[in-house]
């Protein structure tokens, strides 16, 4: 449990947007699987956090969902990033980098 990273509030949106923008349309399951793969430490992520995030992003108009068939011929809702989503991603990523840099600096100075 201790090696799992708890997600910081608001970072999940950024991660989802980023994943969709690099990988193209994905369904929720694929997104979850992908997020588990990329992390060095597995993210503590379940449907309880992923789905509300998807709903939130869709309502903001940053992603768009559409029902499609998977390769295994299952139906799934594929999400893709919208133009507004890409713009938001840029802004959010910039903000995040600045914040992360600040936190890094502070942590270094403290130790």
């Amino acid at each position: 449990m201790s090696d799992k990273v708890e997600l910081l509030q608001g970072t999940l949106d950024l991660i989802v947007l980023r994943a969709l923008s690099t990988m193209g349309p994905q369904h929720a399951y694929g997104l979850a699987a992908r997020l588990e793969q990329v992390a060095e430490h597995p993210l503590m992520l379940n449907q309880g956090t992923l789905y509300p995030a998807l709903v939130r992003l869709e309502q903001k108009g940053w992603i768009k969902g559409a029902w499609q068939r998977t390769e295994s011929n299952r139906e799934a809702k594929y999400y893709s990033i919208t133009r507004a989503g890409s713009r938001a991603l840029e802004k959010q990523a910039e903000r995040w980098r600045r914040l992360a840099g600040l936190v890094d600096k502070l942590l270094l100075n403290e130790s």
Partner: protein
Amino acid sequence: MRRFFHRLLNAFRDERSDAEAAREIAAHLALLEDDYRRRGMSPDEARLAARRAMGSVAHAQDLHRDARTYVWIDDAGRDVAHGLRSLRRTPGFTAIAVITLALGIGANTAIFSVISAVLLRPLPYRDAGRLVQVFAPLPNLPGGASFPRSARSLRQTPFDALRTGTRTLEFVAGYILTSATLTGRGDAVRLSGVQTTATLFPLLGVPPLLGRAFDASEESAGADAVVVLSYDVWRRFFNSDPAVIGRVTAFDGRGRTIVGVMPEGFAYPDAFAQYWVPHVPPGPDARLSFALATIGRLRSGVSRQSAESEVNNLRLLGDAPQAGRFDVMGMQDDLVEPVKPALLILAGAVGLVLLIACVNVASLLLARTAARDHEMAVRRALGASPGRLVRQLLTESAVLSAIGGLVGTALAFGAIALLHTLAATLPRRDLGPGVSLPRLGEIQLDVSVMLFTFVVALLTGLLCGLLPAWRHARSGEADRLRERAASPRVRGTLVVAEIAMAMVLLIGGTLLIRSFMNLAGQDLGYDAARVLTFQAMPQQTTGPAARAFAEQLVERVESLPGVSAAGYANNLPLVQQSFGRDVSPQPYDRQRPRPPFPGLHAVSPRMIQALGLRIIEGRTFSGGETGRDEALVTRAFARSGFFDGPAIGRRIYGGSHSWEVVGILEDVKQFRLDQHGGSEFYIVDFVPAPPGLGGTYFAIRGDGDPVALVSSVRSIVRELDAAATMDNVATMDQIVSNAMSRPRLYAVLLGIFAGVAMILAAIGIYGVLSSLVAHRTREIGIRMALGAQRAQVVTLVLRHTTVLTVFGVAAGVAGAAALSRYLEGLLFGLTPLDVATFAGVVVLFVAVATLASYIPARRATRVDPLVALRTE
């Protein structure tokens, strides 16, 4: 912003989105299952593993929904549903709470509908806030201070001076109430009308429905006679025919051209106005002239005060000595002034009833939530936030008060119907306008009243739910996991407050009821039972023909079977027309000061018997011609100091006439039931009704029900003069009852409210004691097991209520003593601190409280010690 709408929308489109979410979650499960199978699990294993990994599907769906919508809207819906369900589970509690709230809210709705229609809504005229009434100073006469405001009209000269001199009033209009016989449209009928200056219509800003109003050129004696009809007359006597404009019709035998018809509902200055004719100023040699009731419209931006000081500076009365100042009053203020204090008192009373209802329901809810402490504790332990629980409790009480509000609105419908019945008065102008509520016809449940009810119900719900909710929010978790009784102290305080408020209402209601009984039970000076009265007007309104008509009518009516006496007079008791006469105890002498102005009654000799006026000294009129030189005076007249010494045998001089006093009558309630009888004297004479007033009054004393005589009297009238009118038929009892409408209305309403308050308080006491006994069952059982007697147990329980009752009664008496002085103006024959009333109500309340606590106390004595000990 976009998200806000989505969520709001989603709160209401729940089902479709739920299905969508379920589909997405199912897809997710399927993909997970595929994945597990690829890793080599059997299909069944894969399904199970997928489900495990996914966690609770329902939980996921919930989270999905929470993100999608505003949770609280959803929760509110669930709370309402939950509230309704739990209310249905306890029908007894729900019924009592709903009825209690319905009574409180219904009473408030009904009284607010009155206040809204009478006090708040502007009069139905253009810019009604700028309309004012102008009153002349009181006539400089003895007893002038008690004159009604209608006696403060302006004579023609000051009226004209005001009209030309004023700068603050944009329009000035004057009017005189009148009446006339309409002939040629079926049976002859007496209509009530208004003689007015042409300025009345532009002043009020109400245009005619048809045709035109008259103009200033028609206000002269030589001009064509014209008339404007009310909508009602146009409908009833002219079949709503638009072609009436320009037609000539006969008013008092004189042809008048109909120039206009006013719209429906227009009834200025009173509800009886059926037509309007131009006021033609009397010539300098006119024998009879009436004063003009005067109204005006303030110029915009001019205040009532500045108009008043201007009117007083215009020297309208010339150099004549003035007894006071001119008053300029807002038209609506003037109209509602006599009822405003009482309406505000009633509003306060229903406010108290609602508060009592709230206290009762809060107390019930408190007992109920106490019983649900365990449920709440469990819910909280499972993760419900305190705010969430408070919200749920408040929702429940809001649901209760919403239902209460609905039932209350239905009650208010009934109450308003009752009000219309109670406040209804005989539709006659001569009995005085406004003996009841002004604007009665406008009282109804309209949008503003409904809005008021809605707000009241909402606040009531909050108020009732606040106490139980607050208790829950405050108490710690540990507290609530223990089973804990509703704090007896909180509920005790509620009961004390309830008793005190109910006491205040009951004392107020009792004061009004006893005052009404004083009013109704007093000696009127005449015998009102079995007397029929009416007005009749022959075609020839004056001269010997009019007199002969009256004489013959009385003679023929007296010969009818079942009639014991009949007579005519120029007025009747409680008819608001006074005929004063300048008289003196010696032949006219310019040097001597004028004595008080006694009321003159010109009657036929048998009128004394017909009305049942009581002779307390001397005798009644002798028959025949000698009776014409005799007078009867009232006791007040005889004692007024008019004569020095006894009155019998003395003479009264008036003009060229004199009358010998042969008898003294008991004092008569002539104008108002709540005033002492004044100086009145009766002579045998026929005074023709002045043109414009309804006609000669007749009274018939029957042996049985006088109403049975109406049709035979009517046919006699018709036989004597086919064009004569007979109207305002009423028994004397009806007239007396009519004069009491307002005090009766107040007494009945406040009485009902007080009764409701008392019942609610009794329920409150009962409820508190019942739950107290229920909670102390174990203790009582132990006491009984240890040998306590029944009497001791009863004492134990009653001691609690006795303390509450004593506190409540003491607070109630103090409150009533402080508040009852506001009733002073409404009371007759007793003071606001009437000891008997206070004592009676205290005794009654103690009795009610004892009764309400006796039932639970008795139940306590039935406790079986074994059963009681086993309840834990």
